């Protein structure tokens, strides 16, 4: 499934990194501690978090996750937005909590 399709199914709004919307999503990860995410998130995961800073974008890039889903209406910093645009890391915004998004992601992926 593409990030774009996932974004529509989860009723998210893409707020940065539109160039990466055709990337494939095959799984998910939920977490806010960046090293934890680096150590455990699998490649091509949709990463659900409240971390909207520039380091989160760096982690997404280096750990090869497909997109960042900012849950609970979490804020995306301006420098993070720029970095996400430069590197085509889609950032999807949602007002829903992490648990609801993880459930919806699992359903969308048929897991």
């Amino acid at each position, binding site marked *: 499934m593409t990030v774009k399709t996932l974004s529509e199914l989860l009723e998210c709004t893409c707020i940065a990194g539109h160039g990466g919307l055709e990337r494939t999503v095959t799984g998910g990860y939920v977490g*806010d*501690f*960046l*090293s*934890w995410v*680096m*150590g455990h998130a699998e*490649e091509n995961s949709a990463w659900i978090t409240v*971390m909207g*800073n*520039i*380091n*989160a974008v*760096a*982690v997404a*890039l*280096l*750990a*090869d996750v497909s997109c960042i889903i900012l849950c609970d209406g979490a804020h995306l910093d301006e*420098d993070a937005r720029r970095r996400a645009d430069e*590197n085509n890391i889609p950032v999807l915004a949602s007002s829903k909590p992490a648990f609801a998004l993880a459930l919806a992601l699992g359903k969308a992926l048929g897991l």
Partner: protein
Amino acid sequence: MSSSSVQPIVQLYEVPGNDFTRAGEASSKVKGILKKLGYDPDAIRRVSIAMYEGEINMVIHANGGIARVEIFPDRVEILLSDQGPGIADVEKAMEEGYSTAPDEVRALGFGAGMGLPNMKKCCDEFRIDTAIGKGTDVYMIIRVRGSKS
């Protein structure tokens, strides 16, 4: 000819101290080079993660440092060198969940105590040389799996 006699591509990066907005630049550049060279994605990911964690450590604890990266056909060797305070208890620092990072760093999402364990997990060889008041060298080798070492 064995691959060990091949001249590596050498990259040198300065990691700025206390600047979290620039942390990750060196790892991103190395990742870009390895991608262009067509390296195995698993090796690229391990290099990226190990190097980023190392960069962050130098930013948080050592007021920056130097990253020297040597890219061979079958492996990537990384030396992270800083002149920070040194690590008082390396064994403790290697434990998952142990961290001496200050609260403001935790607020950014770091300081989970997973940095060094993550680095070690990504590497085929991992060594720390540290001296209190002098600094720390972290030496890492990541081999391309399936290649002859």
